[in-house]
């Protein structure tokens, strides 16, 4: 099924204008709010015509220091129908919360933990939201654009990046 | 050999006057070669294992080039270098280990295989102490060694060691039964537990040209040989039964915390045990020191040669196993023992009895 068809099915269920196509970001990406994503996710997995059974990737994104927004991008794929969909959910940096899809796609368990680890986005409903790559007592979320590198860690001095290295 | 020394000493006047001294001397003189032999056996076997594994794996193994600090031509001195390294290595005892048991464990294991060698004949006369229940004695001493393994695993206070020790204890205790039962068929045929009588019963020929060894005596002893040999491989914890020290699972099993000299005692014991298993198998089933061509190439020195050759061949087969097979799992190991080997060894006992009564 092509992208327009998928949008058609979604809008038929949730009302016209629910899934807005954002030409600026990418041509085949749906931009959603966290609440909308919470409603849509089970529908995408269960509906026989869509049947997105594979979650390819979950990416956390910091939209830049100016925009004050964090985002999570979900790349979905249907093994049965061989069609893809990208969902782009953005939220303010002050209150980064997204519904968890960990129980719908099991692979999201570790992907969401990684996004939480790197961006501090809370996935509501995740059963085991811990840091995954960084030590459990790490401060801050390193992939945010405004992240300040710590000077020491447990008394170990961290060398600053040398000047002039680009 | 103790008796031989005592006899010799009684002819030397200054020794004959002091029976205590001559007794101690005789025991020492009989025991020392065993110790030397165990060390030599490990040296040669380790070198052989390296070279055999290397040739099986398309490599050359240890190779020395030129002179100086290299390990000799073809790496012959490699194991000597290893031994020097092990002796000079720092002796580490983990802080949380049970010190006394940790120290005593390697010696229990080593002593068990050492004392087993006492009853081991290399030919008709070359034996440290000639028992009339030699075979039974060697089996008993083999079962003492497992206590050393369990203590090593327990005292290290390490989970890998504990797992290794538990696996090892379960494995050795289980495989002792089919190993012992499969030997019974030979004991039934020879009617003795003394190696001298067992080997003597194998002299002569069968089917005109073949040597009258027990492995060729009847189909049941042929099966019994394989049961004993495989169970023996399991008892010395070698691949495919090397679960207690399975390096990909349990790091090094019960030996994880050992290093240097203490570890080398385990090592000596392992190769000594290999020799014992191969030796018992060749004494009981392959005619011991008898020549493979009955009537030719016999004599005392030829006897030692034939015996060592048979043992070396069986040790080579064990090494062949090791570099070919993957490792079994604990439950598969136990299933093999209790569901296949144990019934099969009972069948061999009954079968040999029936064969001896009716077929012969």
């Amino acid at each position, binding site marked *: 099924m092509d992208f327009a068809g998928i949008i058609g099915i979604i809008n038929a269920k949730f009302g016209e204008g629910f899934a807005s196509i954002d030409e600026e970001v990418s041509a085949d990406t749906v931009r959603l709010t966290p609440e909308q994503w919470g409603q849509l996710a089970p529908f995408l997995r269960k509906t026989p015509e869509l049947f997105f059974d594979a979650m390819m990737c979950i990416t956390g994104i910091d939209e830049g220091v100016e925009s004050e927004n964090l985002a999570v991008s979900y790349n979905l794929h249907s093994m049965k129908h061989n069609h893809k969909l990208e969902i782009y959910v953005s939220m303010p940096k002050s209150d980064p919360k997204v519904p968890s899809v960990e129980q719908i796609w099991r692979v999201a368990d570790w992907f969401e933990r990684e996004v939480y680890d790197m961006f501090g986005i809370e996935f509501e409903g995740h059963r085991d939201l811990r840091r995954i790559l960084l030590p459990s007592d790490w401060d801050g979320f390193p992939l945010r654009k405004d992240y300040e590198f710590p000077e020491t860690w447990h008394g170990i001095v961290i060398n600053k990046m040398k000047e002039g290295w680009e | 050999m103790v008796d031989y020394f005592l006899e010799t000493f009684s002819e030397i006047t200054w020794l004959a006057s002091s029976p*205590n001294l001559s*007794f101690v001397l005789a025991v020492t003189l009989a025991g020392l070669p065993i110790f030397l032999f165990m060390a030599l056996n490990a040296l040669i076997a380790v070198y052989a294992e390296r070279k055999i594994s290397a040739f099986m794996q398309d490599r050359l193994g240890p190779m020395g080039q030129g002179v100086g600090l290299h390990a000799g031509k073809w790496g012959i001195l490699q194991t000597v270098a290893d031994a020097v390294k092990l002796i000079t290595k720092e002796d580490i005892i983990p802080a949380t280990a049970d010190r006394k048991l940790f120290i005593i464990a390697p010696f229990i294991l080593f002593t068990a295989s050492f004392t087993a060698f006492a009853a081991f004949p290399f030919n008709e006369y070359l034996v440290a102490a000639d028992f*009339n229940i030699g075979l039974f004695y060697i089996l008993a001493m083999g079962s003492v060694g497992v206590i050393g393994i369990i203590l090593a695993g327990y005292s290290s206070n390490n989970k890998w060691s504990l797992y290794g020790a538990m696996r090892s204890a379960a494995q050795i205790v289980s495989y002792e039964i089919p190993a012992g039962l499969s030997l019974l068929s030979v004991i039934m045929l020879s009617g003795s537990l003394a190696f001298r009588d067992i080997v003597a019963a194998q002299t002569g020929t069968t089917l005109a040209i073949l040597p009258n060894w027990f492995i060729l005596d009847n189909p049941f002893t042929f099966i019994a040989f394989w049961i004993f040999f495989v169970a023996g491989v399991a008892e010395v914890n070698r691949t495919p039964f090397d679960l207690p020290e399975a390096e990909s699972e349990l790091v090094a099993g019960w030996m994880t915390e050992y290093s240097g000299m203490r570890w080398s005692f385990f090592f000596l014991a392992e190769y000594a045990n290999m020799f014992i298993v191969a030796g018992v198998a060749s004494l009981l089933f392959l005619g011991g020191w008898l020549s493979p061509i009955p009537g030719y190439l016999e004599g005392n020195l030829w006897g030692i040669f034939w015996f060592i050759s048979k043992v070396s061949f069986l040790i080579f087969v064990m090494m062949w196993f090791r570099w070919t097979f993957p490792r079994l799992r604990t439950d598969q190991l136990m299933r093999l023992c209790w569901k296949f080997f144990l019934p099969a060894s009972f069948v061999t006992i009954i079968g040999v009895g029936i064969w001896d009564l009716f077929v012969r």
Partner: protein
Amino acid sequence: MSGQLIIFWIVTLVTVLSAATVVFSKNLIYSAVALLFTLLGVAGLYVFLWADFIAVTQILIYVGGILVLIIFGIMLTHRITSVRLSHSSMQRGIGGAIVLMIFVGLTSMIFRAPWYRVAAVEPQETVRQIGRLLMVDYLLPFEVASVLLLAALMGAALLSRKVN
């Protein structure tokens, strides 16, 4: 004193001392290890009685089988090794008196008994005799005993099985 006597005393000393360690040790696993030496010592004593078969059987069964199971049981039992064994007893007076009486009784019996003395002869072929006794003369008791042991084995397997 002959060389054999020296060895006899060494074996006796090892047996008694390690037996004492089994009783007095406060660490369970040490007791088990001391038991190893006790059993080996007893096996040595059997050898002095010309009972080589019994000596080796002692090692094979008690050391190789039963002691391994004891140590196995200690290792598998949860935290049993850290239990401090206490030897405090309530009835020291009476207990001591009874022990003393038994000691005096046994000692006096050893010294008074008219021991049957024969010249030491080395019996030959004990194995053959034992085999004959077990397989010919006492075959029925031997078989009954084995059936009993089999029943005990099956009972143990049944009891230890997890009921799900």
